[in-house]
């Protein structure tokens, strides 16, 4: 039978096995991991776009402070932008919500909810997740959290204004948007928790026959470690959110010290609380959260690099051990975000030591990925370009993090644009590039069609240049000492004057970056219906998801897969073709 006939035959079999379920159960309240994965991915992508739009508004204010924004400015109303000029309160709303939306509603849902849900069961040869109903509940809990966050823009006083970190006591005395933020967070935490339980159980239990842990694709390992981070790091933030909610609603003083002065008057509360407690609980989540953002990205990049260099990953085992060690260490580095709180040199010494230690496994993984390129016959397709873009961008993000992890060098850099630059190099051209790579790479599995390569390359080159134009100037601004929290971008400070033109450069970078996303958006929708039709394994890959029909039917596989070898058997000497799939006997 020819390859096409096999595909047709499989489709036919899959069609017959298909159960008849109605529209709502099939596409909206679905328990199928693929549908849920796509729901997560699309919702996540929309939130990424929305969070990016908030930031583009902020960039106007930073580049041209106190200047009326033409056209759009007036549409946002007098409580936000009277006469088109942005109010400081609205700028603070945008800042807080940009961070919250990008992290909790954009990247995590796309990386974990989207790719995790869609790809992991396919890669381990499972018919679905271990708890399909829980999976649906997890998506809808996330969705509700998103709705609450969006609704908070329209409550009196606007959305949360105290930063994505919601530092106390500022967050406690803030307007009612903060209460909405906390309630939204509780929904999002619940969603992540349910998802994490589901992922770990699925990976341990439902893997195919013969798929031992050391035969897992690296992406599966990344999702497993990520799920443990979500499972164990999120509950303390839930506890902290409950306490902040109590402080705001029930008048408790968990985070309010005695004799706190607000506008010249002592706040009438019981007092004797501890504002630093919030920071500890918050960063106990939020540092592992950084690894939640980056580990799935590393997983995606590893898959694509192995596939497009046509070689096994270099040092697969050391990468896996590094990943597990990274997950463990991420729980004991949190206070490096708090060097400026006066917590004492002994504590600072401990946390800067653990921070230096945690950089080692990250470097091991990145180095292994770079060495994997050595001697490969590289295919420069769009997913590979994004994966290759990830390597130096994440490298810059990682290296610029070292001065922030050391107490002495952190002191002058803390809370400047340098920190913004560092973090965004990790997650924007880092993680988000990996996520784009993943979209291009698994799109044929989800739709049976490949995305357009030319548009993909335009998207990549434009984004790669613009990302650097946006974030590189921030290092300069930061090292000049410009604070990240100023709504005029630093214009009020004379010392910042010689550097402020970089704000304009950075802003134009961001707006042009937005233009370069148009080819992606067009390509995405156009390819769903008009993209080039491809077979089940268009990239000639070795992992199990490529043995399923594209798109996989309910229950995923036409033939129950078994794993016969490791995940990346490319260019095996003596083999007939340059890839020997895991699923072929």
């Amino acid at each position: 039978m020819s390859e096409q006939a096999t595909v047709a035959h499989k489709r036919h079999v899959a069609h017959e096995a298909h159960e008849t379920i109605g529209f709502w159960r099939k596409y909206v309240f679905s328990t199928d991991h693929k549908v849920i994965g796509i729901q997560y991915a699309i919702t996540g992508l929309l939130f990424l776009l929305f969070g990016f739009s908030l930031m583009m508004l902020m960039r106007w204010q930073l580049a041209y402070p106190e200047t009326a924004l033409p056209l759009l400015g007036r549409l946002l109303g007098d409580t936000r932008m009277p006469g088109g000029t942005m109010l400081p309160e609205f700028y603070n709303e945008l800042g807080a919500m940009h961070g919250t939306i990008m992290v909790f509603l954009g990247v995590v849902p796309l990386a974990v909810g989207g790719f995790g849900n869609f790809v992991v069961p396919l890669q381990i040869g499972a018919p679905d997740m271990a708890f399909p109903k829980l999976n649906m509940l997890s998506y809808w809990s996330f969705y509700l959290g998103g709705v609450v966050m969006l609704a908070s823009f329209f409550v009196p006083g606007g959305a949360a204004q105290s930063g994505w970190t919601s530092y106390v006591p500022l967050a406690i005395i803030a307007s009612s948007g903060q209460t909405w933020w906390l309630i939204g967070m509780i929904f999002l935490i619940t969603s992540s928790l349910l998802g994490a339980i589901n992922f770990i159980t699925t990976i341990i239990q439902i893997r195919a026959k013969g798929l031992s842990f050391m035969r897992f694709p690296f992406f599966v390992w990344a999702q497993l470690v990520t799920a443990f981070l979500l499972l164990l790091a999120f509950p303390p933030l839930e506890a902290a959110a409950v306490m902040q909610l109590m402080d705001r609603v029930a008048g408790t003083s968990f985070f309010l010290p005695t004799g706190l002065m607000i506008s010249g008057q002592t706040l009438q509360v019981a007092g004797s609380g501890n504002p630093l407690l919030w920071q500890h609980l918050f960063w106990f989540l939020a540092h592992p959260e950084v690894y939640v953002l980056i580990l799935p990205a590393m997983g995606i990049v590893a898959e694509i690099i192995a596939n497009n260099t046509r070689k096994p990953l270099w040092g697969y085992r050391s990468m896996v051990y590094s990943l597990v060690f990274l997950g463990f260490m991420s729980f004991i580095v949190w206070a490096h975000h708090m060097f400026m709180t006066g917590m004492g040199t002994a504590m600072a010494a401990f946390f800067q030591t653990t921070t230096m230690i945690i950089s080692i496994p990250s470097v091991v993984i990145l180095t292994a990925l770079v060495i994997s390129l050595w001697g490969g016959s590289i295919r420069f397709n769009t997913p590979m370009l994004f994966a290759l873009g990830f390597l130096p961008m994440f490298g810059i993000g990682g290296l610029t993090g070292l001065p922030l992890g050391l107490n002495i060098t952190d002191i002058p850099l803390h809370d400047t644009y340098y920190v913004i630059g560092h973090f965004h190099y990790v997650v924007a051209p880092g993680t988000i590039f990996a996520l784009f790579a993943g979209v291009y790479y698994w799109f044929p599995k989800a739709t049976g069609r490949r995305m357009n390569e030319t548009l993909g390359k335009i998207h990549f080159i434009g984004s790669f240049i613009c990302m650097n134009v946006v974030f590189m100037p921030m290092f300069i601004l930061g090292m000049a000492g410009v604070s990240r929290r100023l709504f005029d971008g630093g214009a009020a400070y004379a010392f910042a004057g010689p550097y402020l033109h970089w704000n304009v450069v950075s802003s134009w970078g961001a707006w042009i970056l937005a233009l370069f996303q148009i080819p992606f958006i067009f390509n995405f929708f156009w390819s769903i219906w008009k993209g080039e039709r491809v077979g089940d394994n268009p990239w000639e890959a070795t992992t199990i998801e490529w043995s399923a029909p594209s798109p996989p039917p309910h229950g995923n596989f036409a033939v129950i897969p078994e794993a016969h070898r490791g995940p990346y058997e490319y260019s095996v000497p003596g083999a007939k073709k340059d890839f020997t799939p895991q699923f072929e006997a």
Partner: protein
Amino acid sequence: MEIPYTVEVRRDTGLTNGKIGIWLFLASEVMLFGALFASYILIRTGAPSWPRGDTILNVPLATFNTIVLIASSVTMVMAWASLMRNRFGTFRIYMGATILLGLVFLIVKYFEYGAKFEHNLYPSTNNFLAIYFTLTGLHMLHVFGGMVVNAYFWGPGSKLWKTNPTWFTQRVEHSGLFWHFVDLVWIFLFPTLYLL
């Protein structure tokens, strides 16, 4: 579509999906209450003064409640054991007793809370009461949640016994694990809040 290892045990892990799931959930619960207990320690050590629990709270009532919860854990095990011995009737009695004991706990707690509010003792009064109301309130939510699940297995959920008794027994076991955890949290809460 059948999800494998929902009822039967996977040989190399020796576990069903549900067993792993419930233990992972309990691990996250440990982190939730662990964070609150850690906060309790930090707030208490940082406070200029801290009342002894028994000067404000009602120790005899809480002792009674401790006995009630421990008894409910015993009846929970008996409910599961009855299913293991294939006695559905006894299961219903023990499960019913577990739910009622949970209800007794909540009623006692209702009177305790009411007495505090009567004396104008609110979460906003001081941080001792703040952490007391937060921890016990969250614990009560867990008791309530456990009761809802147990009531489901006592009532409509027990239909599964006729079609798949092994699965039903496992579900009751998992619900029992959660119930014991809730009991255990109270056993930590009682000395920490009432006696220390």
